[in-house]
């Protein structure tokens, strides 16, 4: 629902609100970790616990592991994709050119046999141009009405809402496990810190790749959430990066939103 002010902001850039739209899907997910790739046994790669002497165990990510994509990531990707696609379908059905304010809610409930059920619900506000040009495919965007208006005034249009899930895992050797003990003093838990850094960077890279794939010129990140797995001997990390891909269109004579004093005195 948009406020009167937000409706006015949208009208100022040639869009009006059509309706609230949603896209939802529920998926049953087997309760498995990183190395479960769909079959009934885990798929451990050779040497995943590191060398016998002192070699640090390797870090695996779902984006670089080739055919070894965790079943959980497959479920996540398909859930996000389906919910977004249904949102766009609903927007198309009401004659919209785009959806703003897109939010993705994921809820987890536990089914009888210990398997979890993930529900993905994408919600947003469908908008339509007051002009004659129709979008061939409605755009989606996490930006608010005000942010959308501001971006359009400065020559940037939203292209697509992006959600990139990444998982990473690393065996926690005994040296690292020691750092987690209650009795140890201040210090970084290396196994987790390394895995989290790798996973977050990968999510950033995937986010950029996803923006490129939709033909964007830039992308703004909304958030990058982190979840750590429950296992003590395996540092298992899930990151979800969400944001909006933007495209540049031709410059036209529109003033900047706010005057800024350039930090370089020679400019202007």
């Amino acid at each position, binding site marked *: 629902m948009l406020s009167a002010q937000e409706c006015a902001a949208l009208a100022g850039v040639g869009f009006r609100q059509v309706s609230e739209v949603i896209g939802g899907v529920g998926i049953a997910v087997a309760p498995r970790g990183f190395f479960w790739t769909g079959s009934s046994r885990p798929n451990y790669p050779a040497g995943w616990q590191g060398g016998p002497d002192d070699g640090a165990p390797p870090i695996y990510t779902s984006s670089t592991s080739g055919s070894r994509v965790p079943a959980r990531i497959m479920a996540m990707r398909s859930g996000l994709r389906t919910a977004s696609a249904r949102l766009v379908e609903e927007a198309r059905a009401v004659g919209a050119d785009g959806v703003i304010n897109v939010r993705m809610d994921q809820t987890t409930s536990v089914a009888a046999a210990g398997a979890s059920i993930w529900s993905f619900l994408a919600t947003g506000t469908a908008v339509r141009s007051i002009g004659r040009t129709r979008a061939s495919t409605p755009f989606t965007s996490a930006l608010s009405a005000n942010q959308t208006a501001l971006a359009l005034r400065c020559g940037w249009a939203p292209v697509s809402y992006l959600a990139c899930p990444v998982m990473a895992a690393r065996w926690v050797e005994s040296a690292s496990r020691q750092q987690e003990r209650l009795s140890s003093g201040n210090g970084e838990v290396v196994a987790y810190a390394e895995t989290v850094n790798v996973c977050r960077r990968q999510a950033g890279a995937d986010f950029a790749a996803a923006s490129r*794939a939709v033909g964007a010129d830039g992308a703004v990140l909304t958030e*990058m959430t982190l979840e750590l797995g429950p296992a003590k001997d395996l540092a298992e990390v899930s990151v979800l990066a969400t944001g909006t891909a933007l495209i540049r269109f031709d410059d036209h004579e529109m003033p900047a939103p706010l005057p800024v004093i350039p930090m370089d005195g020679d400019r202007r």
Partner: protein
Amino acid sequence: VSAADPSALSEIALRRLNESRDSDVGGRALFTSDLSVNEFLLVREAGFRPLGLVLGSSIYHVGLQTRRWNANQELTTLSQAMYHARELAMTRMAAEANDLGADGIVGVRLQIEFKEFGHHLAEFVAIGTAVKGDTGPVTGETWRNNKNMPFTSDRM
């Protein structure tokens, strides 16, 4: 198309969008950022261009703190942990920006979150947008700090 006509903007934007959907995507320059749209636009206005999203994280174990129940005191272990973990996260972010050849990092957000599975573990994460100045500062120096690393700012 006149700028005074509100439908003009949506027209231009949708035409461009349709074009891009039809065309084949080449290897164009692209940036990602954690800035809000207004911040992003203001960065351009101030003479900087965003290079990309940079981040650094530290998972930190906060040690046991002995304390007296009947006195006010600083929790020095906790204080020291905050300083150290923040330093680790910020340094990693700066190193990533340095690799990109950035002059600075703007819109830096530092988040601290104690993880529920063990309440002595916290994640310190710093996320920002690496930027490069279109030109150097008027003083003829560089935008970088005295350690020759990119400057950091929580503002744009």
